[in-house]
């Protein structure tokens, strides 16, 4: 992957991140929850990455959240993976400093039940107002 961006991430965050280079254009970086915001800021502010979106995946251990950052000039997509552990499912919010993450965090909140700490406007986005509380349609248990 160009620019040696993955090396820079490893140098800066050390054992709190685990880097996986999948191909010349795709990389996955597993991070501890405590450094998520720092890694995101590092990519956005120091490397002018563009926040594409976030995907959430319901797993046995909690909800895995994948933040996809595109480095457009280098044709790279760096995906930052973090686990919101059961049973509390909480995560720090990127929307507190990034408008682009506002809606997707609202979507993950209502579809998977992840609470984003510090989100400026955590209202429902897609589900109807009369949808029952505590039911999360995109979890694996929902059929």
């Amino acid at each position, binding site marked *: 992957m160009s620019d040696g961006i993955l090396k820079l991430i490893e140098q800066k965050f050390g054992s709190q991140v685990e880097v996986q280079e999948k*191909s010349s254009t*795709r990389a996955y970086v597993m991070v501890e929850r405590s450094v998520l915001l720092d890694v995101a800021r590092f990519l956005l502010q120091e490397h002018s990455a*563009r926040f594409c979106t976030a995907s959430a995946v319901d797993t046995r251990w909690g909800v895995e959240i994948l933040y996809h950052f595109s480095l457009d*000039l280098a*044709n790279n*997509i760096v995906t930052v993976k973090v686990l919101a552990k059961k049973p509390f499912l909480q995560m720090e919010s990127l929307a507190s400093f990034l408008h*682009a993450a506002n809606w*997707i965090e609202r979507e993950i909140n209502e579809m998977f039940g992840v609470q984003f700490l510090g989100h400026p406007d955590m209202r429902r986005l*897609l589900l109807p107002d009369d949808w029952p509380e505590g039911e999360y*349609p995109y979890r694996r248990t929902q059929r």
Partner: protein
Amino acid sequence: MSQIVPIGPYHPLLEEPEFFTLKVEGERVVDMDVRIGYNHRGIEKLAESKTWDQDTFLVERVCGICSTSHPIAYVNAVEDLLELEIPERAKYIRSVVAEMERLHSHLLWVGLAGHFIGYNTIFMWAWKYREPVLEIFERITGNRNHYAMIRIGGVRKDILKEDIPDFLKAMDELAKKNEMLTKAVIDDPVLHARLKGVGVLSKKDAVEYGVLGPTARGSGYDIDVRRDAPYAAYDLVDWQVITFQEGDVFAKAAVRLLENAESIKIIKQCLERLKELPEGDFFVPVEEIPVGEGIGHGEAPRGEVFHYVRSDGSNCPIRHKIRAPTFQNLPSFKASCIGETIADVALITAAIDPCYCCTERMVAVDVDSGKRLFNGQDLVRLCQEKTERIRDKMKG
């Protein structure tokens, strides 16, 4: 005294329903909120219960207008997972279909925008010139919409040699018509007065909101997946990314019109190459999808479409995330609409080419008395009257 103007929730002109709440003082908008989700179909969840092949057709139904962009982004994701290279012929065919789609989508938008501002001639022209594009689609794919051309590993149908000459002729004619239409819009002094400086989205805001496609390129934010992360045949042909610095409605219209010319250029080059390549070699069979994950994106008419898939080795994905461009473009209304008049907000929201809703279901209500102030026709009328005033002033 501020009043609330609700717009929505059903939109009779473009695609999806959405609900805007405008807080206005007089005619000026001081705050705004958007509510979506009226048409949420849970396609991501549904995709987990369909097979990998069926999902190609499922994601085609995410949108009726970008019905090839989603499958392309999806197969890009699956091919990223498989690390699969597709045949050259398939690459060219994918680009042809994607650019044809851009053409018809942009022409549709230009027509509707013309109607909004009281230029019904533009509406008639644009939709008339869009028709041959749909006819070609019918000839090469069998359908005017939902073409079902894309499959994992290539395309489903070949473009036949005998169809290419007519296709090229139609493109030449369309190029002339499009040039005429572009000049008619870009050189019109009334349109300059009406659209310039309206709904400016600064580059800084464009970057912060992460807007995409013509909305970004109209604000000087130079991103285009076709160039930045070439897929299909975009790195094999010669074309340019169109950007404007102004960020207003005029810039967005100009980006789309000039992009049409680039699309025609791309299509013609692809067709010339298709003439030379051997027929028949347009896919590689894919037997099974191994464990892993893949990311694919593509440039739809409205901006980047983003797909993420994860496989556990079975015949269905265990997660399929879809992000359409309007999801990123919509929230930027907060930056571009506040401070504008109601007559312009109708236009600015349409300029992003979203799934915009107004007209029939839109009513303005005085919060204190509960009296109705405007309905949908009034909104279009307000917008058209402003153009008329500018036109009269210029004549007089």
